[in-house]
């Protein structure tokens, strides 16, 4: 036990003093804040698109334009072309070719007094503009029809006025303001930090094994320290570095969130609700997730000879991460569906997906307990396999071990 402690201490000091630790501690939140800032500012700048509303009926076209311009955030410029005919459509195509306009809305009356609307644009996948158009056209149509039915123009606006639905989060017997967006962002932040630390520190363990292997220190160490003690010390030492980093982030995050600057910056956004329990659980998920990934990479690293060889195994960590983030939107929307529950039970993905679920809706205690238990069991199994690979592998120099070789190593007593 004394040796485990000494090895852990050495590993911790070396990593804490290293450049990587300092850089990632500062850079990671900086990059993250940068990305968020860009997202927020880009959103407030709007798309600045130039579109043409073309219709036979001028009143309808004007109303659509007014609706589009009413959304100040979108910063659109809108022209009206009415009455429009098929020849005008060719002109609009030509304007699009010359990149003078980004797209046009084409409104044609159909035989059953309904209106057919098409939006022709140079870019597909512009959700926010499509969304805006959808609302604007429908709103304008309602107004247009009301006027056509003889409702006085002055009464139309109050009749068609819309309201915003305010979202509140009910938790622990209290209602607190919330917004889907800030919850989404919060879930993403937590998952991102968790992923980054779990995978990064997991890989760090692998890298440290390789370094000890290439510096030929292992045999010197093994003459006094058991290989399992070395492995345990390494996992504990590097894991402690990860926890230190997370602690630094939490402390600075708490200070930042309570500062006046952020107060004004976040005004209008509902603040995400985090409880101490959640933070404690996230730390626990970090520890266990890290345990799983680091044990896995320690075993693999022992079979490799260079960092490059180890890098080839990196996708094994990336796949569960992709899978988790791929499920992000789904889990946020359906935190209690069977798929959300299943993926948050699967040990390689549970730390990340549980972070999503915490943000969306706090899961039942038994699910947390079960996912933690499954994670713990899988760590035990991976550690058992890895320590065997490790024990044999660290004294094998030459080339990367093949799969059959690894199986043979597992059988050595």
């Amino acid at each position, binding site marked *: 036990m004394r*040796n485990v402690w*000494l090895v852990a201490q*050495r590993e911790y000091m*070396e990593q804490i003093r*290293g450049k990587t630790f300092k850089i990632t501690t500062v850079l990671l939140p900086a990059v993250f804040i940068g990305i968020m800032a860009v997202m927020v500012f880009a959103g407030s700048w709007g798309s600045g698109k130039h579109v043409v509303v073309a219709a036979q009926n001028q009143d309808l076209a004007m109303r659509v334009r007014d609706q589009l311009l009413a959304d100040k955030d979108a910063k659109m410029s809108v022209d009206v072309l009415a009455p429009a005919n098929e020849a005008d459509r060719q002109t609009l195509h030509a304007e699009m070719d010359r990149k003078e306009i980004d797209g046009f809305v084409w409104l044609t009356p159909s035989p059953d007094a309904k209106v057919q609307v098409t939006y022709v644009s140079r870019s597909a996948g512009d959700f926010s503009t499509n969304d805006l158009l959808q609302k604007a056209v429908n709103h304008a149509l309602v107004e247009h029809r009301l006027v056509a039915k003889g409702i006085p123009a002055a009464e139309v606006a109050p009749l068609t006025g819309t309201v915003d639905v305010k979202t509140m989060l009910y938790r622990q017997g209290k209602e607190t303001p919330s917004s889907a967006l800030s919850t989404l962002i919060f879930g993403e932040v937590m998952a991102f930090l968790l992923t980054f630390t779990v995978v990064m520190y997991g890989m760090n363990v692998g890298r440290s094994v390789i*370094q*000890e292997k290439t*510096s*030929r*220190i*292992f*045999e*010197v*160490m*093994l*003459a*006094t*320290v*058991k290989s399992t003690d070395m492995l345990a010390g390494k996992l504990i030492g590097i894991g402690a570095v990860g926890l230190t980093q997370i602690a630094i982030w939490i402390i600075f995050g708490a200070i930042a969130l309570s500062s006046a600057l952020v107060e004004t910056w976040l005004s209008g956004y509902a603040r995400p609700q985090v409880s101490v329990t959640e933070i404690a659980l996230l730390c626990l998920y970090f520890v266990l997730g890290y345990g799983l990934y680091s044990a896995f990479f320690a075993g693999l690293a022992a079979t490799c000879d260079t960092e490059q060889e180890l890098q080839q195994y990196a996708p094994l960590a990336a796949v569960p991460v992709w899978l988790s983030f791929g499920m992000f939107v789904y889990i946020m929307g359906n935190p209690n569906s069977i798929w959300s529950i299943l993926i948050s039970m699967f040990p390689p993905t549970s730390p990340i997906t549980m972070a999503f679920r915490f943000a969306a809706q706090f899961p039942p205690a038994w699910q947390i307990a079960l996912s933690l238990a499954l994670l713990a069991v899988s760590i035990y199994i991976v550690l058992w396999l890895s320590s065997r690979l490790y024990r044999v592998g660290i*004294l094998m*120099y030459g080339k990367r071990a093949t799969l059959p070789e690894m199986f*043979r190593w597992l059988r050595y*007593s």
Partner: protein
Amino acid sequence: MPPVVALDRISKSYENKVAVEDLSFQIEPGSMFGLLGPNGSGKTSSIRMMIGITMPDSGSVRLFGKPYERESLKRVGYLPEERGLYKKMKVMDQLVFIGRLRGLDPAVAGKRAHEWCERLQILDAVQKKTEELSKGMQQKIQFIATLIHEPELVIMDEPFSGLDPVNASLLQDTLLDLKKKGRAILFSTHRMDQVEKLCDTICLIHRGRAVLSGGMREVKSRYERDHVVINFDGEACFLHHPSVKSFKNYGGQAEIELHEHANAQDLLRAAMEKAVVYRFELMEPSLEEIFIRTVGEKIDA
């Protein structure tokens, strides 16, 4: 006093190769033991079993008169052939760390590290990172790391390989010094010529088996002194003396192999009649020759 190391018929094989077979020997305190043999003959495998890095398939290892236990390793200093240091660690931190792993108090480890660095004249380097040091300096630090806990048994696997001449003689002196203090020392090497004068006891192994072992003098006395080196001035016709089996004459110096049981003194008398003899040496066979004679093949060194 029990032997420091006692191997009793240990064997180890890896999937397609027998590394060590039925190897037995003992190392007494205050003696220097040479484990000799060509590359790949099983030296490192034997050493690894001695200190429990690997376990023998059969046979037993006793350290300090007791069956193998991890606690004994604190009394052993081991310098492997593939030896390294933590590159990013400062020399002093590294030595203290290794000392502590072997049960030393941090203060004691620091004091001893300082003394050793002073003795080996690398005090300037103690606050530097290992990666900033020259190879020769790193080698010195490896010696210190091996010896910092004052082990009763020092095991060095190919200690002389890759050493510069200065460090090689430094190591020799250090080892002799340790022997004088009653420590047991084992080292392995494939360069038999380097160690002839150092070893008290040897074990020659070949393909995992001991082919020759015992006290150095005793081993050598089993072989006749049948080589003569002679430096002379004058006629060389004595080289055709009946006791001479073959010779090489370099003019002024001749190397002669005698017939079995031939009397070298007769040859000397014959030489003195015809020439002025400056030097006449009846050589004992070198370890290397003994090895070649025993296993009947060349060493692929």
